Each structure stands twice: as structure tokens, then as C-alpha cells.
């Protein structure tokens, strides 16, 4: 279904080895040309608030109308959290900018050292292993990503990035948590047998939803191995042979078998192995677990892994040293992940995005490191329209702390992923992100069918009106054909409250009133069952 890679440059180009140095200038130039094409949209429009990348493909846009259901959409997102605040200026290097070299006397990466992506910017040489991904158009770099009035506390800034909120908002839920609920409106009434999110490290907030945390958490790859070995999170054997030990063992046994997703995770792990080698790092091992679960058929859509240590206040190094090692770990791990996925053609199902709570100061500090900064680049790997999006900060227009002012709102990347990668309707994306953000066009929308007009006319369940309501509201839906229809209302625990209708209805639009005067305030779920499928939505009774 992902047929948008026809434009990819030929693989295995001669001279594509991504080592820094003059020898590969030719090849760099060829990437540059394509990169330029990719950034044409923004280049033509200038900077400022026009953040869009290439114009959204009009064909892609029409496909939004036929959003695929969760079951049919097998696209996956892996988020790699670079915890601590990645030094974006030494990740994507503005090698033609003198200010960069003035402000960073010891740690700056020279033009010659960097791996040039175009005439102005390059990436840190420690990320040489990303060459195949970049070369094949499977890597997108987003410059100067951030948000208004950035926060420089790790805790708060992480909270902002994972909740997907503005710096003046407090949102208790994560953007992925909200997306997953939006994508699974049936979650409460009819929870799936697999976890909606899997987290191996990283911020728990990402998967937080109004119904609690939707992510299953593993402490690391070795805990995952232990999980498989002992058939759950807890060892039933490793208890003292005494009264409390026996009770504990029993409680663990029940907890292990109560874990709703045990079977789906076990099955996925049993069904697959990694098909290539991974480097010896925690991040790489975490990604190998993700690859195994994806290959094994776990329908989970969002995975979060993380790599800490990016808070490089001291001696962060230049082409070698602490920061270089971190970047190498990211690059080598991502490269290994896609090498594994490519072994059996899974790479087109998996989009991988890095993010960090903030960039670092433009000024090198007195300890040859950098302090908490503002905006920074984001990298996305996989089936993308590879290239560079947005312009690198010019390092002249700076904020009060002397750091770059963001130009691309981080939520426009989320928005593009939700709408184009996951096929969420634009209205729903705006609900998830609590605002309107431009589609950057770096991923192509879900293709449903190659033949125009052949898309199925699906049944639709509208949001009830009014909502919130007291005490009554109307529920409308559209049927493509006549059929037996049942509309039921559930409370948030999934208990059936009332069946509003259960009979055969004609094709077209129908509206049913729901009177809730005997119910308590709260969230309720209404569910439509038809021969064409079932779906649910939430409504809120406010008394």
C-alpha cells in the first residue's frame, strides 16, 4: 500500500560511502540537488511563519476522505527521545555561518569535517552510518524546530514536547495518548487485545490519556527478555519460601495472566526474530525489540524509545567525545533498525522520529560544553520525502538568551505525521493537537486505492450535538445502504446504559435523540453497529 517510493534515487550509488572528506564531493552535490528540490517550497515562500515544506499533494489530500480504519492501517511510528537536550547546532552544522565558529571556539565542527547535506549545512561526522538512509531519500531533516516562549527546564520542556502543548498550557495527557484514543474510539467499550503504545524508556507522559496511560512500559531490552522468559512482568518463582512469599507468588501469577496484552506481545515475539545485527547499545537493543514486535505482527502503532545523556554542559567534544558518541549511537542504532526492517521489506511501514526537549546554547560555555538552549533540528527516517525542511537558524536573529528563535513549530511535524502518515482526518488531528498546524508534506498520505471512485462509501457516525449536553442530545449517522443498525450508549467503564435503537434502517442520514436526565455527569460512549462496520464516539453529559 505504500507505493510512494518510486521517486527514490537508485540504491547502491557509486561513491556513496558517507565518510567526511573531499573524496565524496561529487556525491554530496547530487544529494544537494535533490535536497534543494525538496526544500523548494519553503525556499520560494521565504521564512517567517510560512513553515510548510513542499505543497501538499492534491491527490494525497483527497485520500484523507477515505481514512482507513485502525485495522487496515499498519503504519508505525517510532519516537526516539534524545533526553537531556540535544545540541542541535552540532548535529546539523551551519558550516558557512561565521557566527557559529565565533561562538563555539573549541567544539565547532568544520565544514570539512561535517557531512554536507547541501551548500550550507551538514551533519556531524559521527552520524556517517546514516548515509544509506539519506542517500535513498529515507531521511528528512527539519531545521530550527521549537515553539513560542521556550522553556529551558528539562522537566517542563519534556512535558511540553510529549504533551504537544504550548509553553503557557498545562496538558495532563500526551499527544500520542490523545491520538491513540482518537484512533480507537472504541477503546473503553471494547479495548484491544494489544497495547496501543509500547514504551522502552522515555517519558511516560507521551502515552498518558484521560483514561490513564495507554503505553506498556518495559524498563529496557533485558526486561523485555525477562518478560518473555517468565511469561509476564513478575517472577512467580523468585520469592521467599514463606507465608508472604507464597501470597506474593500467587498475586504475581494473577497479575501476569491479567496482563491483557501478554498474549499479543508473546505471540509477536515468538513469531519473529531480528534479521540483522545491532550495535551493542541500550538504544539499539530497544530498537531491536521494536523491530521484533513489528515483524511479529503486533498491531501497536506508536513506540517510544529513548537515549539519555544529551545534557552536555561539560567537555562535550567536537568530532570526537561525548556528544559525538551519542550521535553515533543514534545513527548506528537507526541504521541497524532499518537494515533489519529492510531484510523482509518492513521499512516502508515504519517512520522514526527523533526529538529532544530543547537544543543547546549557541555560545559554548567555559567548560567546553553548552547549556540549555532553544530550538533544534528534528530528524525523521523511513518512507519520507527525504531532504531538508525549513531553513537553518541564521544565528543573527536571536532571543534574549542569545539563542536561535524557532521557525518551525514542532507540532507541525506531529500534525503531518497524524494526518498524512496515520491518515487521521484533519479535524481530528486538530483536536489531538489542540490547534491548527501546517502539513509539511514530508510523508505521503495513505493510499487507499489507485482507481478513482472505487473507494468504498463508508458509514459515518457524527459527533453528537449538542456536546457537552444536558439533558438530551442528538446522535446522527449515515448509512451507505439499508441494514440492521444498533445504537448503544455505554458508560466509561464499558457498562451498557441503553440501547437507543436496534432495527433495520434505510440508507442515508439518521438522527436519534438521547435523553440522559437519569444519568450522572460524565463521559459516555455511543456506539454504532452496522453491517458495514462498527464505530464509537464519546460524549459528555454536564449537569
Amino acid at each position, binding site marked *: 500500500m505504500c507505493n510512494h517510493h518510486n521517486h527514490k534515487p537508485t540504491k547502491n550509488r557509486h561513491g556513496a560511502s558517507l565518510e567526511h572528506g573531499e573524496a565524496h564531493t561529487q556525491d554530496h552535490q547530487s544529494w544537494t540537488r535533490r535536497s534543494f528540490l525538496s526544500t523548494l517550497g519553503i525556499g520560494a515562500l521565504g521564512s517567517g511563519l510560512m513553515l510548510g515544506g513542499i505543497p501538499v499533494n492534491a491527490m494525497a489530500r483527497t485520500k484523507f476522505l477515505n481514512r482507513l480504519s485502525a485495522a487496515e492501517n499498519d503504519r508505525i511510528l517510532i519516537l526516539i527521545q534524545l*533526553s*537531556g537536550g540535544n545540541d542541535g547546532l552540532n548535529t546539523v552544522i551551519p558550516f558557512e555561518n561565521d557566527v557559529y565558529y565565533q561562538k563555539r571556539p573549541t567544539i565547532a565542527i568544520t565544514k570539512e569535517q561535517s557531512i554536507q547535506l547541501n551548500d550550507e549545512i551538514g551533519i556531524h561526522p559521527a552520524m556517517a552510518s546514516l548515509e544509506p538512509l539519506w542517500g535513498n531519500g529515507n531521511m528528512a531533516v527539519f531545521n530550527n524546530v521549537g515553539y513560542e516562549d521556550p522553556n529551558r*527546564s*528539562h*522537566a*517542563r520542556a*519534556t*512535558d511540553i514536547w*510529549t504533551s504537544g502543548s504550548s509553553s503557557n498550557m498545562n496538558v*495532563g495527557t500526551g499527544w500520542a495518548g490523545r491520538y491513540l484514543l482518537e484512533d480507537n474510539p472504541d477503546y473503553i467499550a471494547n479495548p484491544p487485545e494489544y497495547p496501543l503504545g509500547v514504551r522502552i*524508556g*522515555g*517519558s*511516560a*507522559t507521551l502515552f*498518558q490519556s*484521560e*483514561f*490513564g*496511560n495507554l503505553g506498556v*512500559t518495559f*524498563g*529496557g*531490552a*533485558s*526486561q523485555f527478555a525477562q518478560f518473555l522468559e517468565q511469561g509476564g*512482568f*513478575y*517472577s512467580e518463582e*523468585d*520469592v*521467599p519460601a*514463606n*507465608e*508472604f*512469599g*507464597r*501470597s*506474593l507468588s*500467587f*498475586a*504475581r501469577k*494473577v*497479575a501476569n*495472566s*491479567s496482563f*491483557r496484552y501478554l498474549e499479543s506481545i508473546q505471540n509477536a515475539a515468538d513469531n519473529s526474530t531480528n534479521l540483522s545485527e545491532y550495535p551493542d547499545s541500550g538504544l539499539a537493543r530497544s530498537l531491536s525489540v521494536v523491530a521484533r514486535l513489528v515483524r511479529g505482527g503486533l498491531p501497536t502503532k506508536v513506540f517510544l524509545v*529513548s537515549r*539519555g*545523556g544529551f*545534557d*552536555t*554542559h*561539560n567537555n562535550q567534544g567536537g568530532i570526537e567525545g*561525548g556528544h559525538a558518541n551519542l550521535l553515533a549511537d543514534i545513527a548506528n542504532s537507526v541504521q541497524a533498525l532499518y537494515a533489519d526492517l529492510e531484510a523482509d521489506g518492513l521499512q516502508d511501514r515504519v517512520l522514526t522520529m527523533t526529538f529532544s*526537549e530543547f537544543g543547546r546554547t549557541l555560545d559554548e560555555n567555559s567548560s567546553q560544553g553548552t547549556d540549555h538552549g532553544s530550538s533544534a533540528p528534528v530528524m525523521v527516517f523511513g518512507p519520507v520525502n527525504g531532504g531538508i525542511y525549513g531553513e537553518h537558524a541564521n544565528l543573527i536573529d536571536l532571543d534574549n538568551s542569545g539563542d536561535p528563535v524557532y521557525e518551525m513549530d514542532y507540532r507541525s511535524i506531529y500534525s503531518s505525521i497524524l494526518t498524512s502518515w496515520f491518515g487521521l482526518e484533519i479535524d481530528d488531528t486538530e483536536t489531538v493537537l489542540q490547534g491548527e498546524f501546517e502539513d509539511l508534506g514530508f510523508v505521503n498520505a495513505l493510499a487507499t486505492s489507485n482507481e478513482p471512485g472505487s473507494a468504498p462509501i463508508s458509514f459515518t457516525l457524527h459527533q453528537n450535538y449538542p456536546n457537552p449536553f444536558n439533558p438530551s442530545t442528538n446522535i446522527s449517522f449515515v448509512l451507505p445502504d439499508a441494514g440492521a443498525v444498533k445504537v448503544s450508549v455505554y458508560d*466509561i*467503564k464499558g457498562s451498557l446504559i441503553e440501547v437507543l435503537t436496534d432495527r433495520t434502517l434505510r440508507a442515508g442520514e439518521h438522527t436519534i435523540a438521547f435523553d440522559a436526565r437519569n444519568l450522572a*455527569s*460524565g463521559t459516555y460512549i455511543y456506539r454504532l453497529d452496522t453491517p458495514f462496520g462498527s464505530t464509537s464516539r464519546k460524549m459528555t453529559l454536564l449537569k
Partner: protein
Amino acid sequence: MTSTPLAKRKQSTGLTPYTDNWGKAQASHLVRRTHFGNKISDLNRVRAFASATEAAETLVDEAVNAVLPDDPSWYTNGTSGNVLDMYDVQFQRMDNMYNGGFLERMVLFWSNHFAVSYQNMNDLPGKAPNSYSSHMYKYVKLLQTDGLGDFRELVRSVSKNSAMVYYLNNYNNEAGQPNEDFARELLELFALGPNDKDGNTNYTENDVAEVARAVTGWRVNDANLASFFDEDRFDSGEKTILGQTASYDLDGVVDLVFSQREAEAAWFICNKIYVFFVSAEPDATVVQTMAEYCISVNFDLAAVLKNLLSSAHFYDERFMGCRIKSPIESFISFFRQFEIIPSDDIKEYIRVEMQGLNEELLRPDTVFGWSGYNPPDSDGTPGHYAWLNTNLMPARWSIISDLIYGNNDDGDVYDPIRIAGKVSDPLNPFSLAEDIAEHILALPLNQVGIREVEEDFAGNPDLHPGNINNQGNEYVPGYSEFPEYKINLTKILLGEIPWYEWTANTDNDGNLYYEDYFAEALRQYISYLIQLPAYQLI
């Protein structure tokens, strides 16, 4: 938590008083078993006693001398068959469980031992559809006033209580048409049990039939909630019971059972007390010692409980955390641990949830009460295993998670700042993570099975908690001595928050508060802890 190495623990067999160190572990254990979960104020108070003996005696004496609150107006204003009043009786239990201590524990014990279900009384037309709430209230009051007196007298008074007379159909038991219901349960469930400690039968079927004749004549006056003896319905003939023949009535039967089967009766009730308060796997020798003591104090329940709760056996570490919480313990202990005073909405929420799980207070499934509180089955399966299965455990998780996140009619999202300040230093994530876990878990933390977090602490690696600062000390004093579980717990609490960023602020009124994301981190941490299997243990 101080803990004696496994090898050194003595397997105490008798009930000699506990005279070792009276520390936090012991005080917590006593509070968990005599109250409904650890509440800081109760723990501090109990810990301040000089010894186990003083603590146990004080708690039991307070329960014996407790002044009961005024009766609710619906009770004093006439008889009620309104289910809302029945719910009020349940809500009072929850309030008492939250606020009170040992007395309500005993009410729970007896309401299981002398099981009566309100459901049965409002269901059947011949019973008390218009007064059952009042009968149930009076029944609970009896358990409160007589529950720590002479066991023999308690059996007698409960047998005559109107709710019991209705529940086991003794109101419908008259000469010539004996109804064996109550007679059987008097022997089997209340006073003796079917078998003695060695498995010999305590009575015969003929004894049941004869007791049924002896307990005829009882009726209930719904107007004043009193049971009364109706001579006309009584079978005054001679009965042969436990080998003795006389014209026994109900009082006579109670006297006879306790005189003819004194040792069996003492063993029976002590076994049940042991299972409820110590361990679901009764220790035969200790129960026998308890039974002998019970006889020596003339079935004085207060004395039996003081003796047990101050014994070295009771404080053996293998019993700390060996009982699986019942549903009501699970919810009320959560409230007490986190000091969430149950609002009317929350009480109703809990009542409905417990009803859904078939575990509503004062509505046991059967005359046996709930097997979760009872001694092992005939096949030896500990009774408390009944409290957990793959439906009930996730239900507990989701109910408590709903309480944390306000997904109920109450709607309040839990703010953890107050409890953080009470159990720990709210500014120090290391002690906070450990202290909250220790506060709510009955097991030593190294036994709990904390998730291993492979990733290092977030933030600047140079400021790793174990690094040395300018003064030559670790950034976090004592870090290198921290046990593995403490480091993992702290990482789970902090997530992506660097330890040195963790803080609480002070508002204009001088009160501490957490920024939303710290409060949220704590809520998620608490959600993690309450899903640990060890959290099900008390």
C-alpha cells in the same frame, strides 16, 4: 525498613509476647492488620507506644470502650425499608473504616462470621421489605457493642438479633414444622464448625434436627426491631443434643454447645481469628495455644486478641504482607494511605463497584460469608486466593486508577503534594520515591519486584547523583549505598526529569504545591505502585 536476615528469624510457636525492637515495621504491621491500611497519623501513634503489648492492649481497649456515634435520624424516626438507608449503613462502615481503627475491623470480621445479607431480607415478601435497613443497622450495632466481649454471649445475642432471625429463617421455625436453617448454621458456622482440629465431626445430623426443635418459637416485631420468644410456637419437648437430653431452648442450646464442646468451640473461633488477623495458612500449634488461652479467659475475645496481637508470632516477618487484601481493604487502605477522605460520591462509587464485583458490604454471597476471609478449603487452598483472579485484579487496578484520575462522579484528580510532605521530603525525589513505596507496600522493598530501569538518570551526566560535588561529597548523600530498588523507584518516579530539577513551590499562603508535571509524575508513579502484585498484600 529494618529487617532481620531470613536465616536469623525464629519460627516462634507459642504466643510469648513480642519484646524485640518496637519499630516502624512492627507498628506498620499492627496498623495494617487492625485498621484498614496505613494512615500516617495512626502509624505515628502506634509507633509511639513502648511495646507491642502496650500497643495491642491500647488498641483493643479503645475498641472495647468506644462510644458509638449517634444513630442516624432515619433510624430513630421509625423503621426503614429504604435501600438508600441501607446504603447509608454501608457508608457508615466506610467512614468508620477510614477514620476508626480496630472496632470496625472486628465489625468486618463478625459480619463475615455471622453473615447476614440485606438482600435476602428485602427480597422475600415474608421477611422485612419495609424495615430491613433498620434491622441491618441494629445488627451492625450489636457487632460493635458485643464483638469484643464473651464469645459465647455474642453467639447468643446474634442468634436472637432480628436480622439474623430473618436471614436464617428462624422467624419461621415453629413446633411441629422445624426449619433447620438456623440450627445448622449455629453449629456449623457460628459456634463449632463441622469438624474439630483433628478432623472428627463435632455433631451429627440428628443433633442438627434436635437443635432445630430447641430454637423454635422466635419471631420479630418489625415495629420495635426486637425479636421475641413466642411460647406458643416453641417445641417444649425433650431433645437429645450432643448426647445430653433436656427440654432445651435457644439459650439452653448455646450453653450446652459451649459446655459440651468447649475445646472445639475455642479452637474453631481462634482458627478463624488467626486466619483473619495473621495468615491465611493457619499454624495448628499456635491456634491450639490460642484456643487454650481462650478457654482460660472464659472466651473473652478482647483478651484473646490482645494476646495474639502482642505475640512474637504475630510480628514474625514472614507474616508481614502475607494476606491478600479484600476488596474493601483494598479501596479503604488506598484512601487511608493517600488521605483521600471518601466523599459521598466516592463512597457511592465504591459501593457500586463492589456490588458489580459481587463484594458489596453486608451482602455476602452465601451464609458462609466471603471465602476470602475464611480458613482454607478442604483441599487446603488458602481462602484469600478467592480475592484475586484475572477479572478482579484488573478491576482493582482500574478502580484505583479512576480514583487517582477522577474518572468517577467525584471528578477530583488526586493532588499528591500533601502526602508527599507527610511521608517524606517532597523536594527530594530519592527519599520521596522510596518513602511512598514503603508507605503503601507491606513487603520489604527488596522483595517487591520493582521494574529495572536500564536507562540512566535524565539530565546532565556530570551531575549524576553519585558524582562528587565541590565539597567532596556525593551530590545525593549516600547515593552509593542506595539499594538497587531505591534507584529504580526514583528513576520510575522521575522519568525524564533530572533529579536536580525535582522541586515543589510555595504559594502565597505558604503552602507547598507541585507544578502540574511533577504532580502528574507522582500520579503516574503511584499508578505504577498500585499495579504491583505486592500492592495486593497487607
